């Protein structure tokens, strides 16, 4: 983008503001090139790739199991969901049957991670709008969830919990009570969240009607997940293109109509409640049993391709996996929801204020690890 060719509507020179890669609220190392007329944006151009680690290339030199460990780092907020999609894709190629308990454990972890992601979204979104305390509240609850993860797999962030054919460890003693308590605590804290943020006049002023995405744009730009559902399209892969054993659980797919920042925020808050519901159901349904199917030590799926879609907290997380019969994948491509959702920025940032850029970016909920891979 050339700086001086763009003029504002009165023909005056515009200002080029380079936001990022180091900026307190670009959620990592995103760079936004903004052409400003005062505080109004004339043109916005996201520039990504500052965290491009070449993971798709690296995957080709790792075994399938190592790729599950690698997938933790795709979107480091929703590691369990990344594990999930990777394991599912390999299993699809292998054609193994997963034990019931492992299926439940997977869903338990994936939904817990959805809760963690949405708590973090709450915190960062409120932080982007200037409410610092909300972020710290969010992290406080996240720590409780991380304790659960830690007791299961020993890690706080990069879990590497899933195995091809199941999960790596069974639940430790007392986990079920702890998780039950967590759900109860989360329910009561959600009320605090609503008191502190959702009902706040300034917060609503900053988010209602801001960054509206129409239904048509959602489809044209292939947006997915909460961003899609906030614009009135009721489509959840867990329901509409179901995978694993999500069929057995009873949960709603919340949907909102306006497609503005506030609706995207509300979507997450509603989904968080649904995720808690699923967790509760899993905890009841869990029965003792195998947690790992019989799979060979060295996994060599037959040559073929698999495309697996899952509903990650950020949107449609899909994996395209090509095997050539060796121990390493021939090609691994991640359909990263953040990456594709981020494209809409170019369209909807035009004409908004600098402050709204942050709100809109926050409401889309991206992780740069996944955008750049």
């Amino acid at each position, binding site marked *: 983008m050339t700086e001086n060719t763009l003029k504002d509507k009165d023909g005056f020179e515009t200002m080029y503001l380079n936001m990022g890669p180091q900026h307190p609220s670009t959620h990592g190392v995103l760079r936004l090139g903004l052409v400003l007329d005062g505080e109004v944006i004339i043109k916005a151009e996201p520039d*990504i*790739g500052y965290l*491009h680690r*070449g993971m*798709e*290339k690296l995957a080709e030199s790792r075994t399938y199991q190592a790729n599950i460990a690698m997938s933790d780092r795709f979107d480091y907020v929703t590691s369990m969901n990344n594990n999930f999609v990777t394991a599912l894709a390999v299993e*699809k*190629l292998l054609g193994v049957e997963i034990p019931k308990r492992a299926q439940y454990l997977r869903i338990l972890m994936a939904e817990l991670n959805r809760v963690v992601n949405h708590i973090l979204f709450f915190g960062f979104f409120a932080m982007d709008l200037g409410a610092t305390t909300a972020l710290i509240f969010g992290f406080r609850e996240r720590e409780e969830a991380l304790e659960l993860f830690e007791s299961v797999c020993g890690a706080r962030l990069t879990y590497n919990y899933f195995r091809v054919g199941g999960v790596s460890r069974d639940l430790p003693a007392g986990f079920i009570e702890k998780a039950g308590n967590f759900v109860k605590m989360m329910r009561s804290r959600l009320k605090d969240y609503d008191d502190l943020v959702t009902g706040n006049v300034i917060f609503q002023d900053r988010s209602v009607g801001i960054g509206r995405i129409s239904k048509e744009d959602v*489809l*044209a*730009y*292939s*947006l997915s997940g909460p961003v899609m559902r906030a614009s009135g*399209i009721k*489509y959840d892969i867990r329901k*509409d*293109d179901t995978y694993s054993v999500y069929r057995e659980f009873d949960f709603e797919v919340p949907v909102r109509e306006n497609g503005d920042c506030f609706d995207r925020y509300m979507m997450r808050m509603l989904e968080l409640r649904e995720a808690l519901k699923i967790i509760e159901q899993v905890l009841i349904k869990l029965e003792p049993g195998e947690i790992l199917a019989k799979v060979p030590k060295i996994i060599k799926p037959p040559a*073929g*391709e*698999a*495309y697996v*879609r899952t509903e990650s907290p950020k949107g*449609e997380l*899909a994996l*395209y996996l*090509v095997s050539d019969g060796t121990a390493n994948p*021939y*090609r691994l*491509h991640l*359909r990263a929801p953040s*990456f*594709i959702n*981020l*494209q809409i920025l170019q*369209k909807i940032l035009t004409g908004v204020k600098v402050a709204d850029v942050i709100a809109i970016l926050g409401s889309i909920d991206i992780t740069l690890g996944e955008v*750049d*891979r």
Partner: protein
Amino acid sequence: MDAQKYLNEIKGRFPGTADAAPERIKDGVPALLCPAPFLFEIVKYLKAEGFNYLMDLCATDYRDSLEVIYHFCALETNVKLTVKVRLDREKPELASITPLYPGADWQEREAFDLLGINFPGHPDLKNLLLPCGWEGHPLRKDYSRKPDQYD
């Protein structure tokens, strides 16, 4: 499978596509091996037929050729369809579908960046992930990295 109907329809309309690809993706999602010149027209047809959601666009290097894979989905009916295009490895060129699906923008740029596929018709085809002036296309199988100042 519903999508098979569309495949047959396409084969009838576009004679060059008669040799559909074998069904390699499991779950019975049919794949259409489409000759490169027809791609834009076929995708246009698919969009008109209700495949309103482009799930994914990616490319693979099969050593002898490059393959671009489009995953479409019709959200209302939940019918999925895969379109594959084989490209010449030396001079890969394929019409951009960004005018039809703006969401393909960055995915095509990514393929351009990492695999060197040219998409005529793309509004702003340039580096996406790699730094400006990067040489080579890392996702190609024969890519070898030259040592730089950070090694």
